[in-house]
C-alpha cells in the first residue's frame, strides 16, 4: 500500500459575505496516495479552488481535519505552514502569478530563496534543472512579459517543481491555453507523474480527466463522484497526433 499523502476528513469551508454565509465546502472527505494523478472537476462555483487552496495550506478550513503527509495542518502555526508550502507543496495558478519584470530563472529561484539551507550556487543549478525539465532551457533570462502564456505556465510549473515537493497542485493550469499548449502541459505533468510526483489538477475540461488515474467531481461543495481510471490516455501520444501548425 502506498503512503497516504493527503487525507481529508469532513472538510468544511464557510465564507461570510455581509450577513450571509456562503458554504463553499460542505464536508469533503477523501484520501490521496503518493504518486496519484487526480483531476478535480465540477461546475463553476462548486468549490474546486476553495478545496485546492485548503490543500495548498493557503487557506484554512472552517472545520474538519486535513493531514498532509501524516501531519495535522490545523495544529500548525503560520510559520510552519509557510515552511510546508515551501518544502512540500508546489502550487500552479491559473493566472501563472509570475513576478513582473523578473526573469524566468529568478522566478523559479523564488521558493529556494526562502529556504536558507540552499546556497546561491545550488539555487541556480536547481532552477536551471527545473526549467530544463519543462523545456525552457533556452529561455532562462527572458522576463515574464517576454514569454507566451504557455511558456509562462511552464515557468510556473518549474517554480512548483524546483523545491522537489511531495504534491503539485494545479488550479486550471491549462485554462488560459490553446489545445496544443494544454496538451504540452498535460504531457509534462504526466511525465512528472511518471517520475513519481503526486499531482492534483483542477479543470473544467472532462477530456483531461481521461489523462489522470482518478477523477473527483465536486458539486455544491460536496464530493459528487470519485472514480478511478484504469485506462489512462497518454498526452504525449495525443500531442504527436495533433497537426503541427507552427513551431513553438
Amino acid at each position, binding site marked *: 500500500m502506498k503512503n497516504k499523502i493527503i487525507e481529508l476528513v469532513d472538510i468544511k469551508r464557510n465564507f461570510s459575505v455581509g450577513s450571509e454565509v456562503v458554504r463553499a465546502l460542505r464536508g469533503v472527505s477523501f484520501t490521496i496516495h503518493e504518486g496519484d494523478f487526480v483531476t478535480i472537476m465540477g461546475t463553476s462555483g462548486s468549490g474546486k479552488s476553495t478545496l485546492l*487552496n485548503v490543500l*495548498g495550506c*493557503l*487557506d484554512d478550513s472552517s472545520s474538519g481535519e486535513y493531514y498532509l503527509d501524516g501531519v495535522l495542518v490545523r495544529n500548525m502555526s*503560520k*510559520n510552519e505552514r*509557510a*515552511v510546508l*508550502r*515551501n*518544502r512540500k507543496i508546489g*502550487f500552479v*495558478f491559473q493566472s501563472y*502569478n509570475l*513576478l*513582473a*519584470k*523578473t526573469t524566468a530563472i*529568478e522566478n523559479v529561484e*523564488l*521558493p529556494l*530563496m*526562502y*529556504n*536558507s539551507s540552499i546556497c*546561491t550556487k545550488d539555487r541556480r543549478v536547481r532552477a536551471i534543472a527545473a526549467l530544463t525539465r519543462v523545456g525552457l532551457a533556452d529561455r532562462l533570462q527572458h522576463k515574464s512579459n517576454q514569454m507566451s502564456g504557455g511558456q509562462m505556465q511552464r515557468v510556473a510549473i518549474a*517554480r512548483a517543481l524546483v*523545491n522537489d515537493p511531495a504534491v503539485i497542485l494545479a488550479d486550471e493550469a491549462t485554462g488560459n491555453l490553446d489545445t496544443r499548449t494544454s496538451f504540452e502541459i498535460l504531457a509534462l505533468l504526466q511525465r512528472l507523474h511518471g517520475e513519481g510526483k503526486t499531482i492534483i489538477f483542477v479543470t473544467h475540461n472532462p477530456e483531461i480527466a481521461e489523462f489522470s488515474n482518478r477523477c473527483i467531481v465536486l458539486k455544491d461543495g460536496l464530493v459528487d463522484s470519485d472514480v478511478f481510471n484504469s485506462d489512462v490516455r497518454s498526452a504525449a501520444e495525443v500531442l504527436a497526433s495533433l497537426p503541427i501548425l507552427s513551431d513553438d
Partner: protein
Amino acid sequence: MNGLNLFRIALHALSNNKTRAFLTMLGIIIGVASVITMLAIGQGSKGSIEKQISEMGSNMIMIYPGEASTGGVRLSASEMNTLKVEDYESLLTLEHLSAVSPLVSSSGQYIFGANNYPSSISGVGTEYLLIRQLKLASGEMFSEDDIRTSSKVCVIGNTIKDNLFPNGEDPIGKTIRFKKIPFQIIGVLEEKGYNSMGMDQDDIVLTPYTTVMKRILAVTHIKSLYASAITEEQTEVATAEITAALRSNHKLGFGEVDDFNIRTQQELASMISSTSQLMTTLLACVAAISLIVGGIGIMNIMYVSVTERTKEIGLRMSVGAKGIDILSQFLIESFMISITGGLIGIALGCSFALGVNKFVRWPIEIELWTILLSFAVCTFTGIFFGWYPAKKAAQLDPIDAIRYE
C-alpha cells in the same frame, strides 16, 4: 531566509522602480543635506565668534562710569565723571589683575601732508597693548615717562598708516596732526583685521591717556578703564576685587549702589555664544522637521508600494515566505532608501556648506558628530516609518493577498 537574499530581493524591487525610489529618497536627501548645511553654518559662526572673542582677550574686564541699571538712558554729566585717575592707580595694586589701563578717547581728523583721515585717538596706559592683545610691528610703545609728561607721541594701527602714508613710506618718526596738535609716531601695530562685529581693529591710534585728558579734552575724569584678569577663571574674583576697591575709593556706604559698572568679556562671550547656540538650535529644528517630512514621504510610498504589491506578497507567501521575510523585505527597502538618501544628503550637505564658505564667505565648521547624527536619524527614520507598512504587509493572509486585484 538569509539576510543576503533579503537584500537582493529589496534591491531588485527598488531597481524595478528607480524613479520612485529616487523621488522617495529626495525627502531624505533634502532633510539630511539641510541638517548638515545648517549645522555647519551655525557651528561655523559660533566658532568664529568665539575665536574672535578670545583673540580680543577672554579675560578682559571693562569698567564704565555710572550705575549698571541705567540701561539705555543717557547718563547725566555727574554720573559720567565718577572714574578718576586715582581709581586707575588703585587698581594697579590689585592681586588678580595682570594689567590695567584707562581709556579716554576723542574723535577727529588726522592730517599728514596732503592726506587726511577721520578717526579717533585713544588715550591709554602702557598695559593697554597687553589687555587688547595688540602687538607692535615696528617702533616701540610709549613709556611711563611719556605718560608723566603727557608727551605728544603715538602708536598707530595699519588702517591709519595706509591712509596717511599711501605710498608705503615708513611712518616711524613722522609727525601727524590731530586737532592741530602734532603727534610723533613712535610705533606701528601689527594688523588685526575686522572683529566679529565688523569693526576695523586697525583703525586705531594710541597715545598716553594724560595727553588726551590734558591736551585734547581738558578733563580730569576717565571715560573707562580696561583691565585683564590673570586668567579667564579669575575674572570673577578680579571683578569682586575691583568693585571693593572702587567702592572704597568712592566712599560708598552699605546699601548705596555702585556708581560704576563692570563688564567682562566672559559675559559677552557667553551671551554671544548662547545667542548663536539658539540660532544653531533653531536651524537644526527646521532641518529636523524636513527630515521628518522626508520620513513621512518614505512611509507614504512604502504604504502605496505594499498595497500595489499585495499580489506579489501573496505569491511570495504561497511559495513559502514567512511574515518575518516579508517584513524584513519591506523594512530593508525603506532602510536602503533612507541610507542611500542619507549618504547622498551628506555629500550634498557638505558640498553645499563648502560652497557657502567659498562663495558667500560665511565661516563653516562641519563636525563629525553632525554627520553621524543626521545619518543615525535618517537610518532611524527609514526603519521607523517603514515599520508600519512593512508590518501591514507581513500580516496579510496568503490567500487574501494572492486573490487581491
